[in-house]
């Protein structure tokens, strides 16, 4: 067993890191300071740029992480200090008292509404209230209550104690004390997250003073259907629906006075999200956004912005708001701003949302310093851009917003990357890692037995029994055909009840089980284990939900609720009687990674995987390794790239686990996760090449790191003038000895941004051009202060810390002017004299210049061969022809196809440091598969009846996972059990009903329907009720 890793922070970043490590077979201690997992993301309503429901996508991830056999979660726990060195840290932890026994509390919630105290609800940003004993959030994981000691009457004044009286599990422990304990860990991942801050300290926005001024996080809760206003956008002052709302960008960010000159990177896009969702909520609401530069630099964000502007009628006003004053009507707000044409302007609104930025809590910064982890001037982890995710202290890694402003996908990337690094200290023994092979456990053979169903009905204390007459339900259940044994139990989820189920199975030789209790979404795994323990195949279980969807929602109709419970059980029996014993299949998994592309991304991914102990085959079409990075002079922080790249290449070349296939072209790719096959064309001249020269390599995963390419501008006389070059060419120029272009006689330098980006036929932002231009300009200016440099831009997108670079550039006297896309600068050339004309929008002045050098920020393009590659890989590209991730938010490095991961420019524009981070993430994700000796297929997968199949191909067309395909030879559809996710879409569309879905068979559903609608209720209906 490898050594454990401690993950600090149970937000999305921590959860991802923990899950990846756990999947690698590494034990994880997951530390969360609040009472439940989920962090900030759990507070969000929707997520940009797809407007996915945040809970919907996060909840399953939390549950699977929390339930993972390799993850131990400590809530309300904080890290005190760390001793020792990588491989052997001693981590001292402090667990605050919850005053509720986590083992005993079942989250029934009986106590919640009985608590006489009411305190402000932290989860809802204080906009609603809950008791001193409360669940942090409705869908809390772990689903356990907690007591706020500072407010509890019992704890403070030894009064009340009502929760203790009510609790049926005696889970309340007023005497609980703080626990300090130590865990040993190979390495530590720090993912403690952030606070939102508003610029209120400095700008006169009257937050808190004007109740209708709210922060963006508060607004998330307001928009949320489960939030304090049930998702209605209404004012706190008068409960009126909002008709006219303003969003203020950079509220606190990009502001020297807050000592936060950095850009928080996410506010522009989430404000656009807020604007769009507000429009969805309220017909003809007026939405104004006040901004300085719109920074939608992420993948797909520019389209999102265009949509808001062009089709959704959101108004964008380019101005900071200086202050907010009370408006003419009570509760209204007057904003003072500047509009482009007329200068001063003021406007009144019903509600104003401050786009608060991201900052590390003081607490986080302090504990980082306690860990002897160097922080930067803003309190974030101080990170080496060539070694992202590593902190200044070996063995401690950062991920998520502690590393600096980030959105969710970037935090998730960080997490997987940090997992790849942390894992390297856990000394994995590759073979004995991972989930042990399935089918180890032999189950009783039940096929030829008479069906004997056992029904277990749970009281859940009074949660069920308080409404439903459980005894009666049990009696009636005993009379249902096929039922051998029926029993009611006070708490089925308690461990002794688990044993009881096991005994009954043996006693009555039961071969089907129906559990009538709470929701299968949380408890099915528990009961499946219980019956598996007793040697019964776990898929012979059926759960009926008589609590969450029974007693809890029909309090007023006990008789009907009782009757409904019985019907559900009867249907459950009918359904389970045709359940098949299912098993998760095993597929061999080749413990080798195939990395396509030998640039920075590919090299780095290969290195990390090899360092984790996995063999790697690295394929590069060029003879030389290094890719684009070779033409970069300096990083965006101004440090030379070459030494770092050389070291990386040397490491990869020297690593005994890495085979390099340089100069090899890919001919074909076949297979699927666990066993991919690459056919390579070696660097043998065509004429002498024969098929036997072809090289074949095999691996369990493929990492796509094929890079991108620079756009070749057709405008601005690039084609016909020596003095017009691209930023990349400028870099090469600057790295070459004789800098012919920046000679002394070159006095005036102009740079034009967004050349080929953010235009109709390429509606995406190339992300790095702004910072790159700034870096190059600053570099020149520092070495040649006399040179006059002007940057013509549309929006200055120096996100994150690059805002400091922007400020530095201005400080150095570099000129900045905007231009509008529909009024581009004009460049003409006479001999070698360039003339540049443009209109400065603010002053409306027509300006003419004679630049000696014109540098174009050319767009980053997807490689032309992306399409062919994607077809070979059977994984899709996005509308801009970059490789598409499986999920924009939560699976940013996974492709839509299992076992294929993405890194670097192949996935989309990003800078070197981001590329290195993402390639580490790809390595981390890949490792979570490679570490498994076998890949386990899902048990509930589709199955084809070859007799019935007519090979019409409907199933193949509707399958999003390429898991079912028509075999042309055999003329039948075939399911790939590894790829099938069990959604049943094929079963839904199949005309001859040849495809069926295990666990949800047509026969089972029909039986369920028929039983639910059976009419023989006469005798039971007369009685019952409580």
């Amino acid at each position, binding site marked *: 067993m490898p050594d454990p890793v401690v993950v600090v922070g149970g937000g999305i970043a921590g959860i991802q890191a923990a899950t990846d490590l756990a999947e690698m077979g590494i034990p994880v201690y997951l530390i969360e300071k609040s009472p439940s997992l989920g962090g900030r993301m759990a507070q969000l309503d929707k997520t940009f740029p797809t407007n996915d429901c945040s809970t919907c996508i996060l909840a399953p991830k939390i549950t699977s992480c929390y339930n993972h056999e390799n993850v131990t979660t400590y809530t309300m726990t904080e890290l005190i200090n760390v001793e020792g060195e990588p491989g052997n840290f001693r981590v001292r932890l402090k667990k605050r008292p919850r005053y509720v026994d986590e083992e005993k509390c079942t989250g029934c919630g009986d106590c919640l509404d009985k608590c006489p105290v009411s305190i402000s609800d932290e989860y809802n940003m204080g906009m609603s209230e809950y008791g001193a004993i409360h669940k942090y959030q409705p869908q809390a994981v772990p689903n356990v209550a907690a007591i706020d000691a500072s407010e509890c009457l019992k704890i403070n004044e030894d009064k009340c104690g009502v929760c203790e009286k009510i609790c049926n599990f005696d889970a309340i422990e007023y005497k609980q004390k703080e626990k300090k304990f130590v865990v040993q860990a190979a390495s530590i991942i720090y993912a403690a997250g952030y606070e939102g801050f508003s610029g209120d300290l400095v700008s006169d926005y009257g937050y808190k003073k004007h109740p209708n001024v709210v922060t963006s996080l508060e607004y998330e809760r307001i928009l949320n259907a489960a939030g304090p206003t049930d998702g209605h956008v209404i004012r706190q002052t008068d409960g009126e629906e909002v008709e006219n709302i303003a969003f203020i960008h950079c509220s606190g960010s990009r502001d020297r006075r807050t000592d936060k000159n950095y850009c928080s990177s996410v506010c522009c896009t989430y404000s656009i999200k807020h604007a769009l969702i507000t429009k969805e909520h309220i017909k003809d609401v007026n939405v104004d956004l006040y901004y300085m530069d719109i920074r939608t630099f992420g993948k797909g964000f520019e389209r999102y912005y265009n949509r808001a502007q062009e089709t959704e009628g959101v108004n964008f006003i380019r101005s900071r708001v200086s202050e907010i004053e009370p408006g003419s009507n009570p509760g209204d707000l007057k904003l003072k701003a500047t509009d482009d044409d007329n200068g001063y302007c003021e406007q009144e609104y019903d509600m104003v949302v401050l786009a608060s930025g991201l900052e590390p809590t003081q607490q986080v910064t302090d504990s980082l310093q306690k860990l002897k982890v160097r922080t930067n001037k803003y309190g974030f982890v101080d990170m080496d851009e060539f070694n992202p995710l590593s902190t200044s202290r070996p063995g401690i890694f950062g991920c998520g917003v502690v590393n600096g402003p980030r959105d969710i996908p970037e935090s998730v990337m960080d997490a997987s990357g940090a997992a790849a690094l942390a894992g390297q200290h856990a000394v994995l023994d590759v073979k004995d890692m991972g989930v042990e092979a399935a089918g180890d456990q032999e189950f009783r053979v039940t096929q030829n037995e008479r069906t004997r169903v056992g029904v277990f009905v749970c009281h859940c204390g009074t949660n069920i029994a308080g409404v439903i007459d459980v005894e009666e339900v049990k009696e009636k259940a005993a009379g249902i055909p096929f039922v051998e044994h029926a029993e009611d139990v006070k708490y089925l989820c308690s461990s002794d009840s688990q044993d009881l189920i096991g005994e009954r199975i043996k006693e009555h030789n039961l071969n089907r089980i129906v559990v009538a209790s709470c929701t299968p979404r949380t408890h099915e795994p528990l009961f499946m284990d219980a019956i598996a323990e007793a040697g019964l195949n776990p898929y012979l279980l059926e759960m009926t939900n008589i609590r969450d969807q029974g007693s809890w929602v029909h309090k007023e109709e006990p008789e009907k609720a009782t009757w409904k419970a019985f019907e559900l059980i009867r249907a459950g029996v009918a359904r389970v009687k045709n359940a098949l014993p299912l098993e998760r299949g095993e597929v061999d998994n080749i413990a080798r990674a195939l990395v396509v592309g030998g640039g920075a991304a590919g090299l780095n991914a290969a290195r990390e995987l090899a360092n984790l102990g996995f063999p790697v085959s690295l394929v590069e079409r060029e003879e030389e390794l290094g890719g684009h990075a070779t033409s970069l002079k300096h990083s965006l922080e101004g440090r030379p790239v070459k030494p770092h790249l050389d070291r990386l290449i040397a490491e990869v070349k020297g690593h005994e686990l890495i085979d390099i296939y340089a100069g090899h072209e890919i001919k074909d790719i076949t297979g699927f996760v666990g066993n991919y096959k690459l056919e390579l064309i070696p660097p043998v001249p065509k004429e002498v090449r024969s098929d036997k020269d072809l090289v074949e390599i095999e691996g369990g995963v493929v990492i796509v790191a094929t890079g991108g390419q620079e756009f070749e501008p057709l405008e601005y006389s690039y084609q016909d003038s020596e003095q017009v070059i691209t930023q990349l060419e400028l870099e090469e120029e600057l790295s070459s000895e004789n800098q012919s272009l920046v000679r002394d006689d070159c006095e005036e330098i102009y740079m034009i941004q967004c050349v080929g980006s953010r235009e109709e036929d390429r509606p995406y932002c190339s992300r790095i051009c702004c910072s790159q231009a700034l870096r190059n300009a600053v570099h020149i200016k520092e070495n040649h202060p006399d040179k006059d440099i002007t940057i013509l831009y549309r929006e200055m997108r120096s996100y994150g810390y690059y805002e400091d670079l922007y400020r530095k550039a201005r400080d150095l006297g570099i000129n900045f002017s905007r231009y509008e896309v529909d009024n581009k600068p004009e460049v003409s050339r006479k001999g070698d004299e360039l003339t540049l004309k443009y209109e400065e929008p603010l002053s409306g002045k027509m300006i003419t210049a004679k630049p000696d050098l014109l540098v174009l920020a050319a767009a980053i393009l997807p490689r032309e061969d992306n399409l062919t590659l994607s077809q070979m890989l059977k994984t899709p590209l996005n509308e801009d022809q970059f490789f598409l991730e499986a999920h924009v938010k939560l699976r940013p490095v996974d492709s839509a196809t299992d076992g294929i991961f993405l890194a670097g420019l192949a996935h989309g524009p990003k800078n070197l440091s981001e590329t290195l981070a993402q390639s580490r993430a790809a390595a981390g994700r890949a490792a979570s598969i490679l570490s498994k000796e076998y890949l386990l297929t899902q048990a509930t997968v589709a199955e084809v009846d070859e007799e*019935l199949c*007519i090979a019409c191909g409907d199933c193949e*067309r509707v399958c999003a996972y390429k898991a079912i395909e028509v075999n042309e030879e055999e003329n039948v559809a075939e399911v790939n059990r590894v790829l099938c996710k069990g959604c049943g879409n094929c079963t839904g*569309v199949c*005309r*001859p009903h040849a495809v069926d879905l295990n666990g949800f068979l047509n026969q089972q559903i*029909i039986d369920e329907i028929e039983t639910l609608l059976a009419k023989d209720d006469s005798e039971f209906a007369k009685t019952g009720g409580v």
Partner: protein
Amino acid sequence: MKMENSYKDLSAEIKEVAKKVLAEEDVDQLLGFAQGEFSGLTEPVIIKKAEQAQRMVFTEDATPMLSKYLLEYKEKKQAVVAKPCDTRAIAYYLSEDIIDRKNLVIIGINGCPGLKDNTACDECDTRNPVISDYQVGEEISSAELAAELKGVKYLLEDMTPAERKEHYSQEFARCTQCYACRDACPVCYCDHCYVESNQPEWVEEGSSADKDMIFHLMRTMHMPGRCVNCGACEMACPEGIDMRSMTTHLYHKAEELYDFRPGISPEQPPLLSDFSKEDSEPGFL
């Protein structure tokens, strides 16, 4: 009087083209219609030699869908005399890739004069072949077609749902579940039909009218995006039940909602294994 080609002219043309095809193309057989030697009725025939083509005809009784016969001999190379509705069925086969275009020589009938007693022909919106290698007869122009279809209502379109329910109660009382409708349908070609399955038992035993209704509703739900509205089902019914009205309704709805017409091109993906994010949600909550 419709302004399409006469059966006589078409028959003559078909004979000629058929001979040509049998002579020039290396087809194993040609599917067409001929005057039954004894019955005197118009019957489907398989012709293998050019001289046999002399017997070929095309009449108002050329009801059977030769397109469906094609599937019987998939592996052979066949020529077929195809009514426009047949060509649509064939285009549909191709879209599902269940028959090989290389094995087909399609003799399409232009300006199809329609069939006796087939109410579908009165509603027909495809009077020229959508796909063919040879053509007989004069094309009917879209203008003419439009003119003819003007004001034409499809089967039971004018009834209220309640009236239809009443109507079907009468109609399906006569249904004997003989499956003639299914067997006649060119796009019904499963080897084992769901109605014959007893695990699960989609349609329960017993020949009460409501069970018959279930059979027809379920059959119709196999049809959206497939039914080419040829009317074969109705023609085949020994009880003269107008079950076509159901498939026809979905035929028109698919066009109205998704601008989808089955079998107009071999490339188009079938209606229900495709979607658009902008699909409307009529009557959703």
